[in-house]
């Protein structure tokens, strides 16, 4: 098997608090193959967005990536790169799009100008040729009438169009990895469907790998190849889309999938996950889900579970799954 495009190992992110530094992301390891779409799923506060920011080395201060962590992209350790080297990777080999296209675009520059800037930064093109490339990019992401829209300002575009422009900017550098943090969360249903289809098409036609950060299993099912579920700063289960959605093994992943309102559940109660996600710093010492888990037993409260392989590509960090698999 060839080397993965992105390999994150034992990522630990800490923030200072009263009693020293607390880890908000704890020992997270991920791999993304070339052209693959990995979805990192979890509820708010689980650390999924911070993981994505850390990969870009954009972790907000006073957050810190601890020394044990390794982030390798295409064979290079991103954590040892100089600031200019990292800047070349950011927006070059790794592109990023966010949830709020309105806050990511410059309100006083035309959208064409902004995409043009991105193109000129990374490609040695004469201005007219670069302009043609911008039009081509806007066309590729489905902006209608791109020649006219070149001169539009962000406030003149709808949310869906702004997200398309963001995607065009990210794709301008022909990235090998696109990090998409909740790219469709702020969009309406009919527009979300358009953007999901666009991301799927772009990834297939350009071979760009995608790290998708989301809380929505519907979005996961539409575009992911593999899925990793995070809870309280740790990955609790990972697997292929088919395996994880059809046969989740970790009680948290199962609870999360069951709590989604589905037509079959009409007239009956939804399955709840008891309680609330504990805040960082108040995480239980062993399995972090144990206090909310209906299946927890003594071992869950004293020993941190290790990964149990369910199949070759499917693993869960759960003592119960370990017993089930080895039974």
């Amino acid at each position, binding site marked *: 098997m060839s080397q993965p495009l992105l390999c994150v190992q034992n990522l630990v992110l800490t923030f200072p608090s009263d009693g020293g530094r607390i880890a908000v992301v704890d020992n997270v390891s991920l791999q993304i193959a070339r052209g693959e779409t990995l979805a990192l799923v979890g509820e708010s506060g689980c650390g999924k967005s911070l993981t994505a920011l850390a990969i870009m080395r954009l972790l907000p201060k006073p957050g810190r990536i601890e020394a044990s962590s390794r982030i390798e992209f295409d064979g290079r350790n991103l954590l040892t790169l100089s600031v200019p080297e990292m800047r070349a990777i950011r927006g070059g080999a790794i592109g990023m799009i966010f949830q709020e296209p309105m806050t990511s675009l410059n309100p006083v520059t035309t959208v064409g100008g902004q995409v043009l800037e991105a193109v000129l930064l990374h490609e040695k093109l004469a201005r007219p040729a670069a302009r043609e490339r911008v039009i081509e990019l806007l066309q590729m992401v489905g902006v209608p009438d791109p020649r006219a829209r070149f001169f539009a300002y962000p406030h003149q575009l709808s949310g869906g*169009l702004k997200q398309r422009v963001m995607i065009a900017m990210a794709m301008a550098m022909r990235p090998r990895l696109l990090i998409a943090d909740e790219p469709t969360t702020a969009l309406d249903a009919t527009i979300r469907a358009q953007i999901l289809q666009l991301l799927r098409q772009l990834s297939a036609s350009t071979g760009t790998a995608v790290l998708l950060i989301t809380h*929505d299993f519907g979005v996961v099912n539409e575009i992911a190849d593999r899925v990793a579920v995070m809870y309280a700063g740790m990955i609790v289960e990972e697997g292929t889309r088919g395996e994880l*959605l059809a046969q989740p093994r970790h009680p948290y992943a199962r609870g999360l999938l069951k*709590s989604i309102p*589905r037509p079959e559940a009409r007239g009956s109660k*939804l*399955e709840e*996950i008891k309680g*609330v996600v504990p805040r960082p710093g108040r995480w239980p010492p062993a399995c972090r889900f144990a206090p909310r888990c209906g299946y927890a037993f003594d071992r869950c409260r004293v020993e941190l579970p290790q990964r149990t392989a369910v199949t070759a590509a499917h693993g869960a960090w759960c003592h119960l799954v370990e017993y089930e698999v080895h039974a």
Partner: protein
Amino acid sequence: MTLLSADALLEVRGLKTSFPIRSGVLRRVRGAVRAVDGVDLTIYPGETLALVGESGCGKTTVGRSLLRLTEPTGGNIWLGGVNLTRLSRQAFKTYRQKMQIVMQDPGAALDPRLTVRDAIAEGMDAFGIGANAEARTQRVAELMCRVSLDPELMWRYPHEFSGGQRQRICIARALAVEPVLLICDEATSALDVSIQAQILNLLGELKAERGLTYLFITHDLGVVRYFADRVAVMYLGRIVELGKTERIFAEPMHPYTKALLASIPSLDPARRRVKPMALGDVPSPAHPPSGCHFHPRCSVRLDLCSQYEPPVVPLPDGLSRCVLAQESRAGEAGPAPASAAPGAAPTACQAGTPTREPRLD
């Protein structure tokens, strides 16, 4: 005085709410955003009616207009036979107690300077419920227990609670004045999915216990399909389709409803099914397209759709505002149109024109 009429709890006819567009130095009115443009709705006691649509379609304004939080510019609203739109603000207050709202962002809905006890008791104070402060505190404790909050925490402030807990506070606050109709405006949209399940279960239980009626305003069709009895689909200020939840999801009639349903991502790993069926973006409600508002995005539009207002086509369980629905109904044999006649079935919703003149007091 009893507030409930025999069948309908709330009737809305021709509701219009518009916001002036001002521009220039003198802030002259240059036009209007017709956020709600002639909405008819009937809500029956004990049902959950979902009002769905994308952002800017006017669904939230409908909810706010019913409570006169935003003053409607036209139309009538009857609650149990009383025309609320003709009442003075003072007289309206009595009826306002019967209709409460739970909003999307519980952080913004709660006053940060009020303790949870005071936030929940505020409505009771306003409507003079409870003999004295002590009795109200007692009732706050009961309500907190009912929504699964520890009553010991009643002297704390909203910021000390999580999003899900704050939404429970908002629900307790709404229930404190014993409403008959609860308007839930995206009440679970800001919550994580596991917390959303808790709140939906709570709302379901409360409805069964207290015989509440819900107007459930949301953009989440998964929640609608799970929770609602009937669905009204809004697009740019108008209701384009209305019917029983099962029928809407099984046989949507309006092209916009079809596009909305096709955009729900599947959770079944065996199929990825999202099909973008609506072209382009939602137009601005300040400049709605001519004729049928949906025609520029519609994949099956006819020439006449851009020229004429679409007809309101009655269906056995509701209505569809599309010329194609009219054709497909005309194509059906004999009894179908007859069964669609207004007032045929007691459970049928009144489509288009009201079947009876709502009583005036």
